[in-house]
């Protein structure tokens, strides 16, 4: 067992536990976005930052990837943590404002506006879908490609993967719905759900406004009516 203090409370947890798990176990809430039980920790969204150490040695770490240490002093809601978290939420909002998940997190942390240039990305590169596909669905059909500004998620060579079983797991976990319908380009489609239904909306432009519609793609029909 390892002894540490979380927000001043001395606790002891098993070796190998992450700070996030320990804090959750003792009832200290830490918001997460790219963390999901059953998937390996990734530390991409940085929403789960906590402060460890004291004085000038204090630093911010992502609690989902940091294993507990003996004598560790963790603060999950210090001034510095809250400030960093708000900035992270603002940045997430700036890149993906249409995401329901991110909007919810923002509202829970009382973030009402953001100060950065507004973009309308459809992916925050949290890697949830990649891990879902690889670790839970044992497929590995999608992955990260490129780096820096050009980093994106998708299938190799942008063509339909042979190992994809159209399970829809990637769309299920996506907080920003990166894998939105691409039926207008069937070769790139991941789910193919709407292709089976042969919807009358193939040529329609409305596709661009839509987020995700896994189960029967009748979104455009509803919109029309």
């Amino acid at each position, binding site marked *: 067992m390892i002894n540490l203090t979380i927000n001043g409370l001395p606790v002891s947890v098993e070796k190998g536990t992450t700070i996030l798990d320990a804090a959750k176990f003792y009832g200290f809430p830490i918001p997460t976005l790219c963390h999901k039980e059953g998937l390996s920790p990734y530390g991409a969204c940085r929403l789960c930052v906590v402060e460890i150490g004291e004085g000038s040695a204090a630093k911010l770490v992502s609690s989902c990837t940091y294993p507990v240490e003996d004598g560790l002093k963790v603060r999950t809601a210090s001034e510095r943590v809250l400030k960093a978290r708000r900035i992270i939420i603002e940045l997430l909002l700036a890149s993906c404002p249409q995401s329901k998940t991110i909007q919810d997190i923002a509202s829970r942390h009382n973030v009402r506006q953001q100060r950065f240039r507004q973009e309308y990305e459809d992916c925050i590169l949290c890697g949830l879908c990649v891990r879902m596909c*690889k670790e839970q669905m044992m497929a*590995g*059909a*999608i*992955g*990260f*490609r*490129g*780096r820096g500004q050009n980093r994106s998620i998708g*299938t*190799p*060579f942008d063509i339909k*993967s042979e*190992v994809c079983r159209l399970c829809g797991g990637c769309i299920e976990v996506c907080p920003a719905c990166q894998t939105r319908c691409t039926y207008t380009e069937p070769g790139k489609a991941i789910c193919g759900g709407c292709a089976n239904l042969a919807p009358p909306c193939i040529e329609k432009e409305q596709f661009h406004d839509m987020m995700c519609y896994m189960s029967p793609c009748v979104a455009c029909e509803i919109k029309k009516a």
Partner: protein
Amino acid sequence: MDTKNILDIIKKHNKNKVSLISILEEIQGAYTYLPEKALRLLAKETGCSLTDIYGVATFYKTFSLKPKGKHCVSVCLGTACHVRGAQNIVEEFKRELSISPGETTPDNEITLETVNCLGACALGPTVVSDGQYFPHVSKSSVKEIITRTKGGGRSIAAEADIRIFPLQVSCPLCGKSLMDHDYIINGHPSVKFNVSMNGKKVWLRMSCLYGKHTVELENQLPPNELSRFHCPHCHNEFPSFSTCPECGASMAALFVREKCSWEVCMRQGCQGHILNLDQINLHKKSDKGKNK
């Protein structure tokens, strides 16, 4: 694309996932890019998922999924080069080659690239073509770089390589010069003589740079066939003293400074050549060839 070749490369690394980057580097070395088929084969052989391999291949700038040209020109856009106007150099290259950075000319000759720093900031603006550095490049020297890149190939510039030097050649029989001062190859007067094969007679011009192997023919001759070399002035066949160290065919001797001989393989396409510095007696066959 040769499947066996790629399998050999993968086997060399014991089909090990850990050496993924080395394998990719070797495939890129063999094909100038990473063919999709090769990546799929690699995934199958190493057990690594195609997604991961594709991720690595797109992550590093060294790897290219598109075929590259024969020559690669990289323009440095690092801070030092940038402030000295590297952007203008890029524009000039774009205009001259009519391609954007990252693209290859339609004839598959030159790939234009921009790089962030070549580590030669004092020489800026710097351009590297096939490993050769061009310092203090100005807009006006862009054209020359392109010509030199196209002509020089991957070899070092002729003037800089001590193994390549110009020779003055004459016919060993009539003693008349074989140099054609009106026709320049590789920046030097060319050597001109006649070649016959199966009754067909054409002229041949070759670079007078020893070791350069640039050859131009009036008409295409079948490769790997033996031909005969004749003097254009006295129409006699050049004498032969030695056999080619590369392919074993007999070689034609041309006189250099009227005493030594430059012997060239008469097999079409063979690059075998010898510079024989022993004084040659025309009537006594000498086999003492001194290979370069």
